[in-house]
């Protein structure tokens, strides 16, 4: 399978005594949208954070777009130019404007010229529909707008893979929609995406693959069909409790 862009193979990870990942294995194909679901503590966010090297893992293999994350000499910065991540708590830089937030990494990490950076920033800001907020500071924006800026900030690095870590969990219901719409449009554009999410309907709608994690392993995976016809009692229970 040459079109696999992210591959995890028997990944183990523990925080001290607590095993969080106990042999996680899954693949993501180029252009695929994958949702990871599961109860809190099932290891789904940790698995996601291993993919861009924010968490180290003890054994197993992770390959991302030709990078081998088990290799200790790996250039993490080179990897992170290819892998964008959006967090639950937005994590915008409070001292920078919207444009400042978006332009920081292209300018510093990719060494683009000021004009190139600005063009790129305006393009991604347009994609999330916030061109009019370009000179605002994060605290002047609603949660939904902040999260859209965070998405734009990641997109400005022109990544090949985007990771979303429960990006709507901190938002009020009425603000979730605007963020989900942006992500959905992005999914339609052919971007490879891995989403950790609690939004079952959204997962069903956008994902080519759904991964159900339970107690540190991939308990069940398949097309979004598995949300309608779960194959294991645990997924039955999980889907039932998240309707």
């Amino acid at each position, binding site marked *: 399978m040459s079109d696999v862009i992210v591959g995890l193979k028997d990944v183990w990870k523990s925080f001290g005594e607590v095993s969080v990942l106990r042999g996680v294995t899954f693949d993501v194909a180029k252009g695929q949208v994958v949702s990871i679901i599961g109860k809190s503590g099932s290891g789904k966010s940790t698995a996601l954070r291993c993919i*861009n090297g*924010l968490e180290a893992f003890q054994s197993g293999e992770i390959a991302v777009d030709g990078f081998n994350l088990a290799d200790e000499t790996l250039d*993490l*910065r*080179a990897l*992170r*130019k290819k*892998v*964008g*991540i959006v*967090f639950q*708590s937005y*994590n*915008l*830089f*409070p*001292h*920078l*404007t919207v444009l400042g937030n978006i332009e*920081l*990494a292209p300018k*510093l*990490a*990719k060494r683009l010229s000021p004009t190139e950076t600005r063009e790129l920033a305006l393009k991604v800001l347009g994609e999330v529909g916030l061109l009019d907020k370009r000179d605002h*500071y994060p*605290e*002047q924006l609603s949660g939904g707008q902040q999260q859209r800026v965070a998405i734009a*900030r*990641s997109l400005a*690095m022109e990544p090949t893979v985007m990771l979303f870590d429960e990006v709507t969990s901190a938002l009020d219901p009425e603000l979730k929609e605007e963020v989900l719409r942006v992500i959905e449009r992005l999914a339609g554009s052919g971007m490879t995406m891995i989403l950790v999410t609690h939004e079952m309907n959204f997962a069903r709608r956008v994902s080519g693959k759904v991964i159900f994690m339970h107690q540190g392993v991939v308990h069940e995976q398949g097309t979004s069909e598995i949300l309608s016809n779960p194959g294991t009692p645990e997924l039955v229970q999980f889907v039932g409790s998240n309707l």
Partner: protein
Amino acid sequence: MNIDFGPVFARSGFLIDGLLLTLQFSLTAIVTGFVAGTLIAVGSRSKTRLLSLVCQGYVEAIRNTPLLVQLLVVYFGLSSVGLKFPVFFVVILAMTINNAAYTAEIMRAGLDSIAKSQIEAAKSLALSPWQVFSRVMLPPAIERVYRSLSSQFVLMMLSSSITSQISAEELMAAGNFIQSETFRPFETYIVLAVLYLILSLLFRGLFWAFGQVAFPRRRRLGTSL
């Protein structure tokens, strides 16, 4: 009792020279002390236990001894091992040693206030460790502790008067000299007090203006981080 400021004002040339030297001492030690203090703050937050202990020990040692004694140790310490330096250098060295410890304590609090999630976000954007520090941690850290930093720098300017004790010819020493010539201590030290007061108001004004330029977010929104 007669009060006559005339003899003091007649020697205002000394006061102006002294004032300029006080300004030089203070501005230099603000810059050197800030740089050294920030490095020490970073060191004291280091995961390398030895480095962190050394930095914290330094801060405690300096903060719990008087500047005058530090000045005497540096001044006589250097000369007792045969090193002859100009007074300007000795003063800047001692004031930097002192200011760095206080600045380190303040900057440490500022850096501690930066959430881990901010650093993760910056790392995830492929920024180098130096870029993470200088672009994402340092600016908001400084903005948060800017008031404490300004107060510390004003206090340090005022305490530069202590360097008159090792015959640095700054403002205080100029006053002492005028006093010894005119035998008008009351008038002389009142004039000195007024000059220092003007300096400290000037410094406060400068720090305010610098803050307006350096922190555009605060200038525009008026809120604190």
